[in-house]
């Protein structure tokens, strides 16, 4: 393939005075060309983008003029998660008691992570579900061929309150936890002054 036929066409003889030119080999060393080819291949392999970024959907609630119009969550099913500095997570169930006895600390990974808390809370809510005749669940079960596993977690509401010191990553992580643990009702809410103070106090008490 790399050779070419350069022999002079035809077999007619040259005259006696004509010198026979020396035949040069037409074989070309292709090694550098192969080198170059593979170099370019490597370059293109590395510059090709393989993983496309994904997008995470978030629907916001409309701001309501008077908060009384908003749905009230059942206290037994409510879990409030607060995000602090340096990936600290705090949470409480139901209402925050005045003495702060149900104020708990957690984190994103490791022991007692927020995921474990959410899984436990979801189990609790499902276990404590009281079925009311003609309730919302009745309709949903009827729609799903009387599958009574659905809808039991309808009272579970997670309220997420990111603090001033939390990062965007923390917020995305906690929203991701909602997807991971299939929690349907959650809300991103502004933190209150009292809770900010409580976070600061807790962080000051346990410096890590």
């Amino acid at each position, binding site marked *: 393939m790399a050779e070419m036929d350069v022999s002079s066409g035809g077999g007619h003889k040259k005259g006696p005075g004509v010198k026979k030119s020396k035949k040069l080999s037409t074989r070309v060393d292709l090694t550098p060309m192969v080198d170059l*080819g593979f170099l370019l*291949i490597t370059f293109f392999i590395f510059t090709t983008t393989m993983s496309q970024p994904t997008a995470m959907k*978030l629907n916001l609630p409309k701001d309501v003029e008077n908060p009384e119009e908003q749905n009230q969550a059942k206290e037994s099913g409510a879990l409030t998660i607060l995000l602090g500095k340096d990936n600290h997570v705090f949470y409480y169930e139901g209402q925050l008691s005045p003495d702060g006895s149900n104020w708990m600390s957690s984190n994103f990974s490791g022991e007692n992570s927020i995921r474990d808390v959410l899984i436990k809370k979801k189990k609790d809510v499902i276990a404590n579900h009281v079925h009311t005749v003609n309730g919302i669940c009745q309709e949903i079960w009827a729609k799903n061929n009387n599958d009574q596993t659905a809808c039991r977690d309808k009272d579970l509401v997670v309220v997420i309150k*990111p603090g001033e010191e*939390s990062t965007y990553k923390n917020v995305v992580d906690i929203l991701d936890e909602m997807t991971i643990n*299939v929690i349907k009702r959650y809300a991103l809410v502004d933190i209150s002054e009292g809770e900010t103070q409580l976070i600061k106090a807790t962080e000051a008490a346990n410096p890590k």
Partner: protein
Amino acid sequence: MARPKLPRKSTNIDMTAMCDVAFLLLTFFILATEFKPEEAVDVIIPSSVSSQPAPEKDVVMVSITKDGKVYLTMDDVERKKETLNQLNDRRKLGLSEAEIQKAAALPFYGTPISQLKAAAQLPADKYVADGLEGIPAKDTANNEMLDWMSAITTAYQGAKMNLLLKGDLNSKYPTFKNVIASFKRNDLLKFQMVTNPENVPTGTDLFTTGKRE
């Protein structure tokens, strides 16, 4: 016993076939490569378990860098122009038609609205994200994202818009909150956050049911 003499063979290999293969692969990769569009703003995005690819058309993207600067990117030049016209009218910027043309050609916006005129005059190599101060959105009192989003809502009236938010891992929450507030105030209640894909942790509800909302 004397060994039979092996005929000595030439060690020259014909490289032609290898060369063919190399260039065939090269052509393939050249054609298959889609170069990363040049990112105007440098942010490191967090990861999530979401599996939907981020939309690429009709994009309005708000980027938040790690030091809390906010930048805006739009891909539709006509709508960019419309947005700038809206801003021009509302904020009495006094931009001429030519200046709007020039500003619409900018790859992204990252200055206070009052400095748009000056920003459009900057040469392209000076107009880099690091040198600009970003759209002010750090405090609620002076949140210019409200103006931007309201102008954009008008410009995209009746058309599909993919609102994307691309935040840096380490950007602080208050900036994010103000950006969201600007979406909410303009009735843009659905948006998407750009993330890197991540595997679903084993044993969780999502992992066992495989249902995604």
